[in-house]
């Protein structure tokens, strides 16, 4: 395995077990279980919230996460791609949440008032942990994220939801906020209902140590191995206190490798040690399965990092294509034809246009590829937060979308396909770029008035809107029958007229829009001719407002 110099699943577990998060969480869980109510404690700048476990007579069934009309998890549900089954959770846990959620929230709010903190750990044992996870999900899926960093640590908790929930958590980039501590002998967290699906990081622990797995498939793989080997131990579900105390002091004594021969390759040696940390032997078939499980998990978790560094290089390689379009735009503006690059590209198909079209297509392919990877979660979880990508995509869109619109109206558009802005016609990549740009979280800054026209038109769909307005004006001049339709057309024309005038006035458009022969100027002229032809000034605000 290339580039894989280090096995990290065991290291992650050791790291976690050496931190105070691990022992402090458990101590409070224990207190919550004994007291039977929620416990809150501040330790070293972190607020710990422990939810007590509640005895349940029978395993809950999967139910829709949304209680009708509540919309509690709207942010999570809305990230669901069409066609995927709805988000489902354990009904018993949901009912518990519905009845106690508000109380928990008010307790947290009170706790935050006692001592200001930026870090909150929400934790629980058994069903308390599942409730903690659901509460954390709810806090994280609010329209405005909580004003603190949240981590959820559960101990021996049953699975919470279905596969849709699991992938939705991953897609919303929240998976790393969940750590589920699970004893290899405890049967409760594994359950026996295949419709339940894990999410977040699982810390499997045994008397010899622990290891972390952070993708659902690997966790399920590990469940299968554990199901096929050990006999479920009822006592085990109560032994987390034992694991927490022994494992957090385990580090003081070194662990020797029992398997005899050990590989010189440090990655392989690391995996072999990790296998032993769960009490398996590398010589047994079950140990071999664990080994494969760890290796697969490592490959899966490393792939995004490798892919994103490859992408960075590719991004550099496509820069010349963008510059080519930029240059085309500049030359069009300087040319005596007095047409902007949009009109030039739409109306001509010379050598130059063919070259520019190639660049347009190559850039589109590159960005489509990027967004496909984002969609499939093949890139690091914080990929879209990198300024570099947000700005690069924005620059690309500002320059290239007008050409995509031109291409659309040159070759694809017909009355049946509908306009560019109609859903399905606009390439999806631009919707993602819009979303990234809005989500970049830049503090709102005072916008200075422009003294010159922008280098690129700030509304990248300007030309598409113009094409629609053009059609409206044409229709209005030709047809004369349906009065209702005419009013509608006039309204649309009026709207575009006002919108474009504002844009021009604010200098939010680029020079190419205002080139003497640009289709925008042609339209403006046509409109005023039309207006003067109509003696009573048809396109009139009050008229348009009537509808």
């Amino acid at each position, binding site marked *: 395995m290339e580039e894989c110099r280090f096995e990290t699943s065991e290291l992650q577990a050791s790291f976690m077990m050496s931190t105070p998060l691990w022992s402090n969480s458990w101590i409070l869980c224990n207190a919550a279980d004994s007291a039977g109510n929620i416990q809150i404690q501040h330790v070293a700048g972190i607020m710990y919230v422990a939810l007590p476990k509640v005895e349940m007579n029978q395993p809950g069934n999967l139910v829709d996460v949304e209680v009708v009309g509540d919309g509690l998890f709207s942010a999570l549900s809305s990230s669901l791609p069409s066609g995927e089954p709805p988000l489902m959770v354990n009904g018993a846990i949901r009912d518990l949440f519905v009845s106690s959620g508000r109380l928990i929230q008010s307790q947290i709010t009170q706790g935050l008032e006692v001592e200001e903190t930026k870090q909150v750990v929400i934790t629980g044992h058994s069903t308390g942990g599942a409730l903690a996870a659901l509460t954390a999900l709810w806090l994280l899926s609010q329209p405005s994220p909580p004003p603190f960093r949240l981590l959820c640590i559960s101990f021996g908790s049953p699975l919470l939801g279905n596969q849709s929930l699991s992938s939705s958590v991953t897609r919303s980039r929240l998976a790393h906020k969940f750590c589920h501590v699970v004893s290899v002998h405890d049967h409760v967290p594994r359950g026996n209902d295949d419709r339940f699906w894990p999410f977040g990081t699982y810390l499997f622990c045994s008397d010899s140590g622990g290891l972390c797995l952070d993708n659902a498939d690997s966790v399920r793989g590990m469940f299968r191995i554990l199901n096929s080997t050990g006999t479920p131990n009822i006592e085990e579900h109560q032994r987390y206190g034992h694991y927490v105390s022994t494992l957090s002091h385990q580090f003081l004594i070194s662990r020797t490798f029992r398997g005899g021969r050990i590989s010189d390759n440090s990655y392989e040696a690391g995996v072999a040690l990790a296998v032993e940390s769960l009490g398996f032997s590398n010589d047994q078939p079950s140990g071999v399965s664990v080994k494969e499980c760890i290796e697969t998990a490592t490959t899966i978790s490393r792939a995004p990092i490798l892919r994103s560094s490859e992408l960075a290089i590719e991004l550099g390689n496509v820069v010349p294509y963008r510059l080519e379009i930029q240059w085309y735009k*500049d030359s069009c503006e300087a040319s005596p034809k007095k047409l902007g690059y949009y009109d030039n590209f739409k109306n001509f198909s010379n050598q130059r246009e063919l070259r520019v079209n190639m660049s347009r297509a190559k850039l589109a392919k590159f960005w489509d590829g990027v967004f496909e990877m984002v969609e499939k979660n093949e890139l690091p979880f914080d990929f879209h937060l990198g300024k570099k990508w947000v700005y690069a995509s924005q620059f690309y869109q500002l320059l290239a979308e007008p050409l995509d619109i031109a291409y659309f109206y040159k070759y694809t558009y017909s009355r049946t396909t509908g306009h560019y802005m109609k859903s399905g016609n606009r390439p999806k990549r631009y919707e993602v770029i819009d979303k990234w740009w809005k989500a970049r979280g830049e503090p709102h800054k005072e916008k200075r008035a422009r003294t010159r026209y922008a280098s690129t038109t700030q509304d990248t769909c300007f030309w598409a809107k113009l094409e629609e307005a053009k059609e409206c004006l044409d229709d209005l001049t030709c047809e004369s029958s349906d009065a209702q339709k005419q009013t509608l057309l006039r309204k649309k024309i009026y709207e575009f007229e006002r919108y474009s005038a504002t844009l021009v006035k604010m200098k939010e458009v680029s020079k190419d829009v205002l080139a003497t022969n640009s289709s925008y100027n042609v339209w403006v002229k046509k409109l005023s001719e039309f207006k003067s032809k109509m003696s009573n000034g048809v396109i009139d605000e009050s008229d348009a407002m009537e509808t």
Partner: protein
Amino acid sequence: MAFPILTGINDPVTSWSWRASTRAYSTDQYFHKEEEDETVIYAFKPSFSKKDWFAPENMSSFGEIKMNRDHFPCMRSFSKDLDATVNEAFLKNLEVLFSTSFSDSVKTVVDSRRSQRIVFTGHSSGGASAILATVWYLETYFKKQSGVFPEPLCLTFGAPLVGDYVFKHALRREDWSRFFMNFVTRFDIVPRIMLAQKASTNQTLPYALSQLNHTVSIQENDQSTAGFYATVMTDVETAAHEASFGNDKIMFSEENSSHLELSPYRSAGTFVFSTGTRLVSMNNSDAILQILFYASQSTNEQELSQRPYQSIRDHRSYQEMLDSVAMESLHHLPLDGVYVLSDFGLTKHAKKCVHAAFEADKKRVDNQSKIDAKLPRIVAKLTWIEKDYKLRCRTLRKGYYDSFKESNEEEDFIANVIRAELAGSFDEVLVLLKKGQLPDGFEGRSVWINLATRYRRLMEPLDIANYHRFSKNEDTGSYMEKGRPNRYKHAQRLYEHDLLIKAGRTAEEIQASSYGSFFWTEYEELRGKQYEYDEERVKKLEELLEGCIRDKEVDDEHIFLEGSSFRKWWHSLPEHHKRYSPLQERMNYIRDS
């Protein structure tokens, strides 16, 4: 990798330094000086009171504070533009030293030119003082004229960690790291203390410190010491594991780390660990961190119960180390292979972690070779701009700045592609530097500083032209404030640093330097304005241009060509201004092509 200082490890100066360090215990001053032949030794007195380890008024979790850039201009990271962090109490101890005759004493030694070598040494917190005193000496004397001032040597015995990652990085970048040698016995707790959170050892530290003092007898099987030991080691473990992740970003652990405050302190210079039978030296700070953790592990409960006592005792056993361990038995890592670590009781697992730290170093060297292999292509691109593109623009009688800004011709397009490609190359290096994926010395090399300066002077005007061509100053704000790419800021920091070190310019002189970037931005901003309102700025700009031409920041051949927009703008200024302008002569003279 060479260890120049270690060739002298048999040097009697090591045991002499130790002797001086013990004598410093009984000085009523803060330091103790010895001199013999061509060597001067300054040994610093340790303190075992808590306030000298953690400054009482310091509010940060590890008692840390940023170093003052005016006093320690080299102690920072250029890529991150971050000053080094050190323990405030130790820095304060250095300040106390300056209230004594210490700095006068050093000055006398330096001025006398008799000494060939100046040694700073100390045991325990005295070692921390020695480290900071050495840094002070390097910044104050050595930096200015190496070769004239004697090389310092910093020998510490069981010293606590003093500075952070930036501190270590800066020392290595300046190639000063080789002057620092820290002796550490296997279980000594002191080099580990600073890895623990101040709050968690708050109660137990005063007692533990009292136990560390040479002059007090140690309590065996002491509960308080055992508690202190366990607390410190938990945090040492966390720090060691966290360092192991290196640049492998693991989301979950990142999330965990963000919930925790981890010690900023890292080792600097060479560490020489003693196993009781041999010495192992290394200068990879991540590997040192792993050893600090794993060498303390025990194999059974019996050993474990001994550790707290040993961790105190070992702090007091440097004399035994010097007596019993032959300096000949010194091993270097990674050269001699990690097998020598078996003496520390390191398991396979532990060795794996140490090994990974050395592998990361190799990777850094690899990255450097990869970048270096790309240099000829970078140079070729710069040369094309310098020769072909600029020449062509000159024949058109306008400067390359204006030609690029108008961008009418194919060549301008090519220049733009090159601009983007070079930006990519320099950005890539900056990213690697920020992530610590290049050797610390990378950017300190003259070859790099010169290339970055050449790139900045030649290409930044094109970026400024581009910025204003697309009116980004309206969207984003002025170039210097909002738009200037970090690659140029970084290149300028390197250039200024080079002036400070090599040309011996003072900080004030550097502050007053003229830069092309500033000239072009100011010009772009002024050209749209009315002379009457900005008379002063116009005059300043003209002065600035003189400085820029002198420092080769602006190409005077291009800027005064007939077609130059700067020339046209200047001619549009009112007559009364032009008559007294320092540029009048240049503007009236038209160069032949």
